[in-house]
């Protein structure tokens, strides 16, 4: 995956902060932010996750004119391949901040696969883990955030105790 342009916008930061229940004015009030040590609105620590909005191929966003696997007339809009029944879940996420993104930044994201491994889960069958390392750089090519995510694919839905 590569994202060529992830423009960091104040309105997007505000919506993201609301979604994570964060009322901190540093995320929406520019006049307040100017009086703080950081001096401007900055993004909350997990904001780069929203770079998915700018990934043209992102699989978990409905695409105009294409079938979507969520419900409409039927519980799913696509034919499921037989078997399966597993779910893709987020298992781990790690961030290193070289600085915190702020409105006006235009980031790029480049990702590379890391390790993959398997484990037998107690509640969901075989688990396949895969790691992705993503570097977010700014318009000057400077590294802003390094992210390492681990996704897990379960063999079947996670049993609820």
């Amino acid at each position, binding site marked *: 995956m590569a994202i060529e342009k992830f423009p960091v916008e104040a309105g997007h930061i505000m919506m993201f902060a609301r979604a994570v229940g964060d009322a901190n004015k540093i995320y929406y009030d520019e006049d307040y932010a100017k009086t703080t040590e950081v001096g401007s609105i900055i993004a909350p620590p997990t904001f780069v996750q929203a770079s998915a909005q700018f990934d043209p191929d992102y699989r978990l966003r409905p695409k105009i004119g294409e079938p979507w696997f969520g419900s409409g007339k039927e519980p*799913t809009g696509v034919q499921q391949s037989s078997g399966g029944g597993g779910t893709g879940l987020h298992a781990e996420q790690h*961030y290193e901040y070289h600085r915190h993104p702020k409105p006006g930044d235009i980031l790029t994201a480049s990702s590379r696969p890391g390790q993959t491994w398997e484990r037998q889960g107690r509640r969901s069958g075989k688990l396949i883990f895969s790691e992705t390392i993503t570097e977010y750089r700014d318009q000057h090519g400077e590294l802003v955030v390094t992210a390492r995510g681990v996704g897990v694919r379960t063999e079947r839905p996670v049993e609820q105790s």
Partner: protein
Amino acid sequence: MALSAKQLKVGDTHSEQVVDNLTRTQIVQYAGASGDYNPIHTDEAYTTKVAGYPSVFAHGMLTMGLTGTMLTNYVGDGRLTKFGGRLTKQVWPGDALTAKATVEAIREEDGQPFVDLHLSTVNQNGEEVLSGYASARIDP
């Protein structure tokens, strides 16, 4: 306000309830803001009939984002240098989450003091939903 090395000690804790009675609407808000529209988070028909779960559930990254709110309230804005964790259990509508940071170390790098934290976020039954860590720049 940033933390000060002089006033911190190993074992100090800070905790906050980061959500009470998580709503499906907040999960929808997170889907819209993050761009992750996986229907297992927002689409009850798909999730119960196709994916095989009792209801929609929160994005793991919403749990981490909620935990981040506690974290930046504690260490101050723009101070984080590292933040990570494992998402150990699903979070469901109606859940109440409490996020806690515990000071593991206070150290210096090139004269700059840092704090290392262990993070744990638990649901209303005391079950851990996130186990993580963070580091932040602090004042002397």
